């Protein structure tokens, strides 16, 4: 045990997952150890210094998205703090929530931009989840580079240029075969697009519902929410095992979480309304009419719920459509031919 204690030293701070586990990187005597912890167990992956070919770091927009979401929530709580009157408790809670959101925003902004870092060896390309900020990557590289160079030796600029120039001709020769190994097929353009348009419509209808109380709007909103739920499931099915970009996958999964949350809130709301109006609880149409007649502005909770629903619908819908357009442009058929190999029948690009 005492020998093991001295074996590893930490390379960077661990990155915690959303709910479960954390990933960390440790330096061993002759290898890099990636640890994935899940509460009661740990998984290890070793990358020997002699085998590491390169580290690819790609800047991502996750940090910006986080900042936008935190900012949006901050503004939402400011609006609620101004609007909510009466008992001092609710405004105080709103202002405390605003301060927390703004503090988180500042912390997130002070940490450097987010990135994805991949380590490549001759036989694998592995993501290193703990290297998720540009500053962390730079620090880690500063520690890692001398260790790798001790084992592999260092490349002089001439050597690198020679190798890369030689590699360039091979690269051109092997481009076709490489492409066939990485077919750029990605699914669900149409389903994703429908989903994001539905989300935007849902945001708009909810905003209208806040202003005008009419049964038609309530019914329309309900149908659009149901449609969003169905579309989300369809989009998730279609993106499964496809080359759908990660950002789009994340947006779709976030939409699922949002839709589930919205359904739960609606169910609770309907249940409470049914309890309060027991005389019409057995008549669905009357219940819907009573619900439509309610104004969200009557209760701070309902106002907050509606504001949350509108902001998230619009945010997810707009972000999804922007990403879809961006990737559609990047993978358009003219720039990326779809390879046709015997026995492999790729689905055509739908977008």
């Amino acid at each position, binding site marked *: 045990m005492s020998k*093991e204690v*001295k074996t590893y030293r930490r390379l960077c701070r661990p990155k915690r997952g959303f709910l479960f586990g954390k990933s960390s990187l440790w330096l061993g005597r002759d290898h890099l150890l990636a640890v994935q912890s899940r509460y009661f167990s740990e998984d*290890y*992956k070793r990358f020997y210094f002699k085998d590491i*070919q390169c580290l690819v770091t790609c800047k991502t927009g996750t940090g910006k998205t986080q900042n936008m979401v935190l900012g949006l929530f901050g503004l939402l709580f400011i609006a609620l703090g101004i609007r909510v009157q009466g008992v001092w408790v609710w405004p105080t809670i709103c202002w405390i929530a605003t301060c927390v959101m703004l503090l988180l925003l500042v912390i997130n902004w002070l940490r450097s931009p987010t990135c994805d870092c991949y380590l490549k060896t001759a036989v694998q390309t592995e993501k290193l989840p703990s290297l998720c900020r540009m500053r962390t990557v730079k620090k880690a590289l500063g520690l890692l580079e001398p260790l790798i160079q001790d084992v592999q030796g*260092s490349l002089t600029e001439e050597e690198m240029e020679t190798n890369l120039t030689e590699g360039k001709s091979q*690269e051109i020769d092997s481009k076709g075969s490489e492409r066939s190994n990485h077919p*750029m097929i990605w699914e669900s353009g149409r389903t994703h697009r429908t989903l994001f348009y539905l989300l935007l419509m849902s945001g708009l209808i909810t905003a209208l519902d806040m202003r005008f109380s009419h049964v038609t709007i309530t019914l329309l909103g309900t149908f659009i929410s149901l449609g969003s739920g169905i579309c989300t499931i369809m989009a998730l099915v279609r993106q499964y095992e496809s080359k759908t970009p990660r950002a789009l996958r994340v947006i779709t999964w976030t939409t699922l979480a949002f839709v589930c949350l919205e359904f739960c809130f609606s169910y609770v709301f309907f249940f409470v309304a049914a309890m309060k109006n027991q005389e019409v609880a057995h008549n669905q149409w009357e219940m819907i009419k009573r619900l439509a007649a309610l104004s969200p502005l009557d209760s701070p909770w309902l106002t907050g719920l509606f504001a949350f629903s509108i902001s998230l619908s619009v945010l997810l819908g707009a972000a999804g459509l922007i990403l879809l357009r961006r990737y559609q442009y990047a993978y358009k058929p003219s720039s990326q031919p779809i390879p046709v190999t015997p026995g492999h029948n790729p689905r055509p690009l739908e977008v």
Partner: protein
Amino acid sequence: MVHCVKCENPLPWEAFSRADLSPCPSCGALVRVDIFPALFREPDQGRRGETLSADQGASCFYHHNKKAVIPCESCGRFLCALCDVELNDRHICPSCLESGKTQRKITHLENNRVLYDTIVLALAVIPLLMIWPTILTAPASLFLAIRYWNTPTSILPRTKFRFISAISLAGLQIVGWIMIIGFMVTRTRGA
């Protein structure tokens, strides 16, 4: 060849080993590539055991027609170049490697470990929220802490703090339950 991690298209070699980020020509993602000499190294060719002629030295334990080049540092069997497995600067035979992996004697081959200390601590702490389950979980936690005290937990630097905390907490809970039961018994008898 190095590919963009976002669009999986090959990255131009001009982007390699630059301190700043450069855009991927296909998807525009900002990428930094740090390369090392291993990228240009030819893959290692597997060694083949040398065939043994009649008048030459010892033969491999596993391949009788191959010439032994090294003894296994664990069991001492003679090994040919094919059977010689180099791990952590040690030369061992495939069967020692296999037994070392199954018996968890070679740390470098382990890719998963159960954290018994965390389990024991969780068993001592989480039931405290509902109080009543601790009548069962406290002895269980104490038993598991003693049972797995010497079992290696994480291969990362780690102290016995969790085990000690769990034992202390479980001990306190047991003492608490003994006192409550004793009090109830005394009260029943008194009544």
